[in-house]
């Protein structure tokens, strides 16, 4: 044994003590080392995914802030009736006023964020609007993610005519602007409503996922571990689900966090065009659109829903960024920043 190997053994995680010693209970060819230089029984504590998630996000302040806002957004949506001061569709006597109070037969009501042109309480509508935004964003992205991932994976993995066929369809869809396509689908579906909006935007987003996933699959399927998986008898389906997709998860998560705010914006756009949810439903997009015509006299009607969109979008992006670092086992540790 040489000095080199001794120092190497003290080095920690990446020392090759097994390889140099040839076994756990290797005899020492020379003098046995003092107790503190023996390395058997030394097990480095390992961190589970949960520990990485907690410490990873805990050390990343941006991601933590994002996570807090995302959780707040989801809680707001779920508990809207408890959080909102009033029913979003109650019409108060005072129209289009900034922070004010109104008096009705039932008593005095405070409108911290003012009232809109119909006399609805803006804060209550924003709180309830989170429901529609969350539903539309989650369902849309789930829909597009599921179908897009399947199309992208199959196209990228099999290649050949399967790839050509699927990707020509995606190209065809790519050629249409998202909103025009979604509007067309709504017209085809024949009617307004949350579920039609979800399907319309969902279909329009398929290509974003399909392209991304196909690109990832094209590079991952050439990795040697995919060949190694085939060499131990794994079938195509299992290779796609266990070998390829888990390795494409980081960019897909980033894509999800990018698509959620885009879905919120697309819903707002459709609502503005009169192709979204039914007009009385409180949604941020609809509020923004309705407030737009009064922007010079009543800024609060559109500014506050705008803030809600902005903060939610920003939070999803920061959260997604942090999540990507945690998921990326290849990088190992998440750095403090």
């Amino acid at each position: 044994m040489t000095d080199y190997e001794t120092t190497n053994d003290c080095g920690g995680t990446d020392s090759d003590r097994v390889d140099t010693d040839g076994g756990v209970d290797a005899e020492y060819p020379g003098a046995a080392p003092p107790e503190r230089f023996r390395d058997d029984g030394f097990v480095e504590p390992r961190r589970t995914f949960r520990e990485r998630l907690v410490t990873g996000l805990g050390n990343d302040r941006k991601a933590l802030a994002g996570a807090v806002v995302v959780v707040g957004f989801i809680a707001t949506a779920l508990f809207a009736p408890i959080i909102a001061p009033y029913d979003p569709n109650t019409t108060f006597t005072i129209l289009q006023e900034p922070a004010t109070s109104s008096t009705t037969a039932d008593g005095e009501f405070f409108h911290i964020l003012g009232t809109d042109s119909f006399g609805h309480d803006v804060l209550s509508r924003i709180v309830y609007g989170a429901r529609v935004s969350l539903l539309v964003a989650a369902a849309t992205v789930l829909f597009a993610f599921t179908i897009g991932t399947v199309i992208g994976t199959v196209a990228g993995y099999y290649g050949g005519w399967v790839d050509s066929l699927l990707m020509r369809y995606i190209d065809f869809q790519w050629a249409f602007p998202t909103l025009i396509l979604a509007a067309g689908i709504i017209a085809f579906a024949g009617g307004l409503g949350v579920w039609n909006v979800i399907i319309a935007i969902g279909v329009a987003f398929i290509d974003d996922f399909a392209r991304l996933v196909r690109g990832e699959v094209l590079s991952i399927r050439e990795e040697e571990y995919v060949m190694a998986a085939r060499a131990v008898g794994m079938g195509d389906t299992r290779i796609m689900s266990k070998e390829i997709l888990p390795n494409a998860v980081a960019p897909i998560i980033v894509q999800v966090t990018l698509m959620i705010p885009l879905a919120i914006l697309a819903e707002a756009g459709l609502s503005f065009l009169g192709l979204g949810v039914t007009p009385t439903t409180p949604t941020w997009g609809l509020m923004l659109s309705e407030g737009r015509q009064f922007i010079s006299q009543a800024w609060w009607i559109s500014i506050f829903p705008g803030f809600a969109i902005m903060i939610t979008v920003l939070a999803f992006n920061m959260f997604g960024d942090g999540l990507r670092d945690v998921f990326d086992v290849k990088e190992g540790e998440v750095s403090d920043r």
Partner: protein
Amino acid sequence: MSSAHSPSGSADADEESLLDIAGLHTVFHTDRGTVRAVDGVDLSLNSGEIVGLVGESGSGKSVLARSIMGLIDDPGEIADGDVRLNGESLVHAEESRLNELRGGTVSMVFQDPMHSLNPTLSVGEQIAETVRLNQDIGESVSLPAEIKRKILGAAENSEAWRRAIEMLEAVQIPEPAARAGDFPHEFSGGMRQRAMLAIALSCEPDLLIADEPTTALDVTIQAGILDELRALKDAFDTTILLITHNLAVVAEACDRVNVMYAGRIVERAPTDVLFENPSHPYTQGLIASTPRVDHPDADLQPIPGSVPDGIGEQPACKFAKRCPEAKPECYERPPDFRPVGASHEAACLRRGPTEDRL
């Protein structure tokens, strides 16, 4: 070097062989023409042997390995010949049958341990997965189990997981129970190659193809892996085809050696015979171009030129252009295998019994 087996296991032995490759041609169709990567290989392995396949980069060793495994993808194809494992043709087998055989009956270890393990699954899970795939232990192949283990940090009690820990122990990973939950990036290079061996051997295959298993490792670790291969061969009763460009590895590990050049086997012999008495000019060149510890002052003599890419018309003997002994007839007349010693053959017209010699 001591050979564990007597040199009786030559290609023409009439005992039933485990693997039989006959006249195998694997070609790749490219824009520049058809590349004949494996160009008529005959090779047979008997049970319990470690047989070396040696040749320089581009000689078709890895393509031969993948041809055996049925892992030749477009634009490549097996154009002719057959591969028989236990008498069953692999070339004509359905993909589903090949999937059954891979892992359980024939398995493979790849060159680069850094990239041959899935970075997103724990090492233990990758072994357990192979066990579930190939052995009927009544456990479904489950993604949720891995997610549960990863997120909840739960210990796994399944049969497959227990087997994974056993395998890690068999390949000398310390603290196998604790290490099984580690991801590949938490293993060193040597440990990853051991983990690859654990995966490949977890279902006790009859045949293990080791494609350059030590090339990416440094020298001290190489020796450990080769020792491991020999120990595992006995422990799991596996036959090994060891592919390498490194003559030292062959000398260390193999019973018999096949030297491959440009898609063809050019010489085959028991290991010690080959090193003592290399016959084919290519083998002689290969040995002369390898540094030797026992002759530190000897000049290295590189073989001039490089391996042909196999496109277009080739001389009858593909080595003729680089061969110091080439005669005009070498370009025209295909070399056949000639006996040059006991169980020792070379495909060269200028070798063999004197009366046939060019």
